[in-house]
């Protein structure tokens, strides 16, 4: 169990210039949208029309929640697929530009 968690944590912390790192960041973006969606913050996007959500919640709070939802949505819909595609393309690009062999010291 501990090993699986450690592996998962290592994967999430992989450098962004690796396929795993790109995919991990895409996953974080997708999970962010899932979270704010589950919290019902989609309703607060009504601030775009200049209309408050309900009387129970302040106008400023609703706008902040709506803005966070929009950022999470754009992250998941626009950025995450780009990151996933990039993670698939990166190994192919690496083969096109192979690493230079290290010369032995004289």
């Amino acid at each position, binding site marked *: 169990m501990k090993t699986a968690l450690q592996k998962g944590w290592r994967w999430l912390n992989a450098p962004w210039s690796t396929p795993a790192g790109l995919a991990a960041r895409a996953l974080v973006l997708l999970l962010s949208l899932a979270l704010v969606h589950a919290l019902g913050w989609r309703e*607060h996007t009504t601030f775009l029309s200049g*209309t408050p959500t309900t009387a129970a919640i302040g106008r400023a709070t609703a706008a902040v929640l709506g803005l966070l939802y929009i950022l999470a949505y754009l992250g998941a819909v626009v950025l995450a697929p780009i*990151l996933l595609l*990039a993670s698939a*393309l990166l190994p192919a690009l690496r083969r096109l530009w192979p690493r230079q062999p290290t010369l032995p010291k004289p």
Partner: protein
Amino acid sequence: MARLRNAVLSLAALTLAAAVWLPCLHLFFTPPAALWHSTSGLPPRARELAERQLHLWTEAGSRRQEIERMRRSNAEWDFMGRTFLVWSLAEMALREPAEQARYLPVMDTIITETLRLEREHGQAFFLMSYARGPAYVEQPMRSLFVDGEIALMLAARRLVAEQAEYRPLLRARVAVLLERMQRNPRLIAESYPDECWLFDHAVALVALRAADRLDGSDHAAFIRTWLDGAKKNLTDPVTGLLHSSFNTKGAARDGPEGSTIWMAAHLLRAVDADFARDQYRRARRELGRTLFGFGWSREWPRTWRGPLDVDSGLVIPVVDASVGASGMALIGASSFGDAAYLRALQTSLEFAAFPIRAHGQLKYGASNQVGDAALLYACVLGPLWERLQEPHP
């Protein structure tokens, strides 16, 4: 060297991925044409939107909550939400005659309640607070905005099915419209103190046309004179688009605006189809934009910049996409059968307006009741304008 190589490769991969993904993104949001359009009956999107609107007008609690939150921002939206819904229901009743028994009572409820509120609180109840500020130039105060839209609500109801008690009400309202416009040598009337709006004049002209169709009056000469005057005096010389607002001397206050011109062009189609189409074409050129399958409308042409207000709504920088203007562009594109632009606008709507569905009802998260009613109108408009063109029976 290895770090630089990794960074360059990652950036190249991200650039390539973006070049693939961004042009494809719209494919996931473009709705099939049949969802939004049908020549008879209601398209599925219209039915979902209509169910939500009908629910609001049959469940008093939901309606009160929705209207209260709109009125906290703008009392006009309460009024226009009623207007757009009555016009939509008239179109729906003509598309689905079998459903008239369901739609007509809701139209009557809205009209009756609107007239009651106007009677009890005055026209200012449906206006923004500055209507109570400086005095109107013409006294006693009346708003062409309120008179025109109420007249067209009454007319729309009667165009679907005659309602005897509305006949004198429409006649009285038409008399007020005419009397107010004829007080001014340019045939323009105030909606707010020393503010005259193209939108409201276009509504008034259609109401006059509808009265001619219903009651056999003849306002053709007045309408022609008004249009001739507007072409000469109320038009932006650079774009050829009508100004969206002007003072009582006819001087432009706001130049051409997307939040006005798309709907105005649709309205003018009922009284001068060629002029209306010309305005639509100009608006499409000056304000309509598409990129990667998405469509939107600017609020102002490049040659004119106005202040942000409740009509423009939020304007997204760089692309200058106006929320209010893009919503109205749906009505214009639908009215003039501009299928490609309409599809691009609908794609943007599905992508960026956050549809929320529940129990067969649809609303857009980024919208409100008046916005959703306008979207419904864009889906169903058509038969009412055809009926307007028929001669008085």
